[in-house]
């Protein structure tokens, strides 16, 4: 299957900070990819580079067979939804449908009306009077009405309550099921991601830590638990992502490329959350605590 997004060494530096560093990822066609990582990891920067809203300092991105650029044909293929869900506050949904109709070659305004009427969002009221969830629904519907080949969504779930999240993801899954659509969706909410996503890009400290199909990633990673023991033997064969040690036992998150033979270690499957947290906390001393500590239900601080 061809890659819709293929980047190599994509780097974005602002005056002093490096927002994204040497980002090389590949997202195959038809995936719903979750872009996760702590705040400030470069998720927004990556999405903006892919949308052509920002230019990379170095490196290259190939999206749908071309570089992201200010060009009507390219922009027609991209659906971008920024984090703060920017819409014209004093205009109605119907006004926005009109704007879209005048600025896009293929535009399905009717689909917006259908989607909104299904979730009972009024078309004739200013956006400012809508709730956060309604606004997000409207913005997603407008983005989908472009009939894009690639949908880039920056934390669309952050401001939504659980019910609104469910509706939003439902709309998204339905659109993706119709085919011809690839989605990259940044979020902190692992549980929601697990429901709809089948691909994962993990950024931390402006670098790519992990990129691949979730199924493969789950297969590759294991949690090893054993007595407190020297782990160099394990490290020779497998990549240890994270190591937690207590006086009595050692817990390892490892990326496997074969079975563990030593019976000292008990092997368990790793959950998405354990994998994500494992990679995100690699260099963070605060996280190097006992595994018995209460688990975070989500990654990052937006919850």
């Amino acid at each position: 299957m061809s890659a819709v997004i293929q980047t190599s060494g994509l780097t974005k530096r602002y005056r002093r900070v490096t927002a994204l560093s040497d980002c090389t990822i590949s997202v195959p066609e038809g995936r719903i990819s979750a872009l996760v990582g702590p705040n400030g990891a470069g998720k927004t920067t990556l999405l903006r580079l892919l949308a052509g809203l920002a230019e990379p300092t170095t490196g290259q991105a190939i999206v749908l067979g071309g570089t992201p650029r200010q060009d009507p044909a390219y922009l027609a293929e991209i659906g971008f939804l920024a984090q703060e869900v920017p819409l014209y506050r004093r205009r109605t949904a119907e006004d926005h449908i009109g704007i879209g109709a005048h600025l896009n070659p293929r535009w399905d305004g009717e689909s917006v009306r259908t989607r909104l009427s299904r979730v009972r969002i009024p078309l004739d009221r200013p956006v400012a009077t809508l709730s956060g969830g309604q606004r997000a629904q409207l913005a997603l519907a407008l983005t989908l009405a472009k009939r894009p080949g690639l949908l880039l969504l920056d934390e669309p779930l952050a401001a939504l309550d659980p019910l609104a999240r469910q509706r939003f993801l439902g709309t998204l899954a339905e659109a993706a099921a119709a085919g011809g659509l690839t989605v990259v969706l940044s979020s902190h909410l692992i549980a929601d991601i697990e429901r709809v996503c089948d691909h994962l890009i993990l950024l931390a400290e402006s670098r790519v830590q992990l990129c691949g199909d979730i199924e493969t990633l789950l297969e590759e990673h294991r949690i090893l638990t054993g007595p407190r023991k020297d782990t160099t033997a394990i490290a020779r064969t497998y990549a240890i992502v994270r190591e937690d040690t207590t006086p009595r036992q050692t817990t390892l998150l490892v990326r496997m490329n074969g079975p563990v033979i030593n019976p000292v270690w008990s092997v368990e499957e790793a959950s998405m959350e354990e994998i994500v947290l494992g990679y995100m906390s690699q260099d963070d001393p605060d996280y190097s605590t006992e595994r018995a500590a209460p688990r975070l239900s989500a990654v990052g601080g937006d919850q």
Partner: protein
Amino acid sequence: MTWVTWQQYRYQAVAAAALFAALAVVLLITGLHAAAVWHFALTHCAADKSCASLVGSDLPLGNSVIATLVVATSAVPVLPGLLWGAPTVASELETGTNQFAWTQSITRRRWLAVRAGWLLLAAAVLAGAVSAIVTWWSGPFNALTADAFQVNRFDVTDIVPVGYAIFAMALGICAGTLLRRTLPALGITLAGFGAIRLVIALWIRKHYLTPITVYYKLTTPFTPPGSYLPVSQGVVGANGYPPTSGAGAVGVDGVPIPAACQQFMGRTNFNLRPVLSCMTTHGYRGYVTYQPASRFWAFQGIETGIFAVLAAVLIGITFWVLRRRDA
């Protein structure tokens, strides 16, 4: 994009049209009155051949409140730039809606071209319409006082207001794009427009073309014909320099009286003739340097051109920045 622009600015357009209509009604009523008075005075002076003395007389053409209002229309050209120009990009950047607009299937270049194009046109039309009615209204007043070329008259009539309006709009759009914030952009637009208008009107305009200098005998004062633009005026001696103040330092209209002629001052009883004759015999001459009334349209053209070029530069900068900078 034209539809989108119209949708965004339709209420402002209606409001501007309403305000213009109100101004037009006021100027139409008072202007018709002034025209009637002027016409009446002309027919009468033609009958007794006294029209030469009409210019500069105190013929009551209308009340001073309206005359002040007309001078105040020099603020009209900056308004579209302030109210529509400065926020047009800045407010999108402030609210993030540019991310919505610029990810539709339209390039930023075209988005700006259409929007800025219509806004520039709107500013030009509004300023042009106000100027047209002000120009018509000013006809009798300028004829009576022969000051069409003066600051505050020249600046509100004919084509220069269109140039000002285009410049203010371009400045507003450019400032909003560079500063990314509406309020600072408003400030810069107002200050920038005011400063450049002032500098040009007070110091630069006089020098668009080489002015004409006429020397005259002090005993037969010379005033250039028609609505001329004075550059400078004074008295020079045979050596080409103005008289220096003597011991007495008595002066007439700021011109020091040469020592040799001061003796006449005491007995003049406000009759300057002996002094002026004395100065003439000592080789002093009066001079006036001015731009003749015939250059009025050339100056209108030059000034409009200057502001149009400034506007073009600002719009060029805006395009460049919008295209190059990350959204």
